[in-house]
């Protein structure tokens, strides 16, 4: 189990080596999430339309190690954009990955950029 988790490491914008072209903007629900496959990774991508921002994080919820975060609910807590896991509603900041309502380890977040109506996710390898 630990080994799946170790695949996901936070990538900061300045560490991006590969911009992976995931899908077109229209494939993503407004104010919702979808899951992108990149090699052997599952990345949850969110089109936070209300904030006018895009976010990406690991699809794996560190609580019970299930690949479900993309199916969760978007929201904010005191202005911090967050995702609530559909299983037990643990919430994670989409900015820092921090678990906002518990003491779980932070999840990995990834940079997202939109170019020519396509969604790109930044990876360091």
């Amino acid at each position, binding site marked *: *189990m630990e080994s*799946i988790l170790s695949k996901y490491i936070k990538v900061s914008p300045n560490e991006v080596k590969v911009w992976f072209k*995931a*899908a077109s903007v229209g*494939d*993503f*629900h*407004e*104010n*919702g999430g*979808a*899951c*992108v*496959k990149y090699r052997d990774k*599952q990345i949850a*991508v969110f089109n*936070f339309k*209300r*904030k006018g921002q895009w976010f990406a994080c690991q699809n*794996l919820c560190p609580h*019970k*190690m*299930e*690949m*479900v975060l993309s*199916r*969760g*609910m*978007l*929201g*904010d*807590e*005191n*202005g911090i*954009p*967050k995702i*609530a896991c*559909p*299983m037990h*509603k643990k*919430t994670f900041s989409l900015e820092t990955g921090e678990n906002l309502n*518990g*003491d*779980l380890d932070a999840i990995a977040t990834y940079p997202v950029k939109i170019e020519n109506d396509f969604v790109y996710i930044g990876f360091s390898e």
Partner: protein
Amino acid sequence: MKTIIVVGNGMVGYKFCEKFISKKGSENYKLIVFGEEPRPAYDRVHLSEFFENEDAKALELAPVSWYVDNNIDLITNERVTDIHRSGKTITTAKEREFSYDYLVLATGSVPFVPPIKGVEKEGVFVYRTIEDLEGMLAYAAKLKKTKPNAKAAVLGGGLLGLEAGKAVMDMGLEPHVVEFAPKLMPRQLDSRSSKVLQLKLESIGINIHLSKATNQILGNGTITGMEFGEDDTLNVDMLVVSAGIRPRDEIAKTCDLEMGVRGGIVVNNKMQTSDEAIYAIGEVALYNQMIYGLVAPGYEMAEVAAEHILGKDTVMSSEIDMSTKLKLIGVDVASFGEPFMPAAKGHSILFEDKTKSLYKRINVSHDGKKLLGGILVGDATDYNMLHQIYLNGMAIPENPEDLIIGARGEGGASFGSAMDLPDTAQICSCENVTKGTICGVIENGSCENFAEVAKCTKASTSCGGCKPMVVDLVNETLKSLGKEVKNSVCEHFDYTRQELYGIIKVKRLTSFDETLDACGKGDGCEVCKPVVAAIFASLYMDTANKEDVIQDSNDKFLANIQRNGTYSVVPRIPGGEITPEKLIIIGEVGKKYNLYTKITGGQRIDLFGAELNDLPAIWKELIDGGFESGHAYGKALRTVKSCVGSTWCRYGLDESVSFAIELEERYKGLRSPHKLKGGVSGCIRECAEARGKDFGVIAVEGGWNLYVCGNGGATPKHALLLTEKVDNETCIKYLDRFLMYYIRTAAPLMRTAAWLDKLEGGMEQLKKIVVKDSLNIADELEREMQFLVDAYECEWKQAIENENTKKRFNHFVNSDDRDDNLVFVPMREQKMPEHWGN
């Protein structure tokens, strides 16, 4: 700068630090804390929660950073081995030496393991630390692999033993509790209450063995059983010893501090040991010749020691309150004050109802003026109030029995509200917070709701037992100040669900963003989104397809998410009636998609383990076969259960199946604050368990009796009679009004029974509104319901007919691959998800 060394970083040692640093003068002291355990202090009282989430961090009392921030040196994983009083130093197991000005011993206790032959065998555990629990979990997991029906026993039927019994049961082992005494919780309960408790525990599956002295533990290296008498044995595969505690006083022996004959470090009422510079607090301290195995006295000791070191002369209360409440869910047991009453001091009043597993006893002084103690089993809701009356020596009613059976003629117990308590009444005994403090912070405006009060006074932050009372105090105080008591939805909406329902209706808002802009703030969250979605559904019959991103987890995919992220499929089978042809269709779908199938408790069939990608195809086949969504995923009407009724049954007075189908067809898809269930029985034998439902109809001579506001589940309640002997049409009319009124006014996730509890005027009032139309809204309610009934559409049919909606069931946006993270294991002739490893 003086140095205080605290030995032991458990609950009380931690509390000492917390209290000490908050006091004036503490800046002149340096705190060094030694803990033998690998992690900083955690909440032992809620240790059993570790089984639910295995989240050690969640139990932590404060993170390591807290110690750093407060300039406390925390040294974990290092045991203090010796005290050298003459030079005021200590040495540790790592042979390091430290000097102190004051020493505080908070070394707690260890479980007492009786010297029974064989207790050292593998598979025998104690229940005290996180490591103990990890050991038990690992062992239980190993056991279950080779032996699915493995059994575990707990030695000791006290407060802790019962908790351990529940814990082994939750681990999936067959639980047995073995007690030496002829009754359970011998220190807190009398024989009759113990009997009631025993029946209750047995009914939830815990086996109880009383009057058993264990001679030896059987097994060859590994435990296989326990032997009581010669031919009296119990086969078990694991044992948890919970036979009392022994203070960890070994360190005092190294320096000749005065000790009790049976252990414990003797302290005076300032918590000083026989050496003035050394204090002992918590479960290691022998005060009044007693060891107190509870946190509340330990916390008071921490307070006294902290104050005394800083030069104040606070002293320990001379009488320690040992009142306790068992923490097992669904098993209410509490005892307070003097549970057993010596006839010389007063007399007892007992109330027992075996059919309801209820036992209440109060002990009253001879003059009938004071409550001296008592026992509650089966229903401990009045514990907090009775405990307060006892603690504060408050006056009791002329007929003391009113305290437990309620004043005759009216419902409810006969003491007033928590507001009647004196300001000095200690509401939270763990954190020592009085009523005056709680009401005070509201009155002076520093707090506005329960959460803020808990944060600023710490009330309810330890064991949580006083929470209902604190909530009452907060709400009552707010009311008395003319402030509204707000149960606002969340930080995004300053309104209750009922208010929000009204606003959305009046302004005809139809999307979540529109609603936020009109009356909310921020971007919404997992609390308000589903609430708003449900309101749209109740007002406009919007299905979950319309705005899928604001739906709750299950509604979003029109299926219940399972443990491994797969889904379940529940087609509607109205009234439980199904043709052989349709059974075959379900069977074929199950086979084709390799689904686990099970008959549910709601008289229909659930197919589990469907992958997200397969859901549309599965539903297409079901819909083509004539099925519809069963809304098993929604806060919506689930099922209307039926018994076979007069069509076949020789006792049946009416056609219960036909009526159940009619009702289920009428209300299918109806979304509500919580789920709704119905039942129709053909006679009062009640084979459909209709009175265990939100609405239940029972055929009697002359028509249908309609009962409402019942449920099974966590807090079972029987539905109450709303009207008698009505025909089908009248029954539906009243049901329309009742359901619509509930939908309009209930709080989110409030079932009908809880809603009725909160409804001012209760059942009488509900009858007036529904039957007599006292609010003059019956027409409107009926019209609204008819609109919803007419607007019904099967949302699964909608979903598969629309290519765009169908897309949300793909696991990936950029690939047709399936989730490769899924692992199923075989189970009997079907399959199940792999167990959660963490």
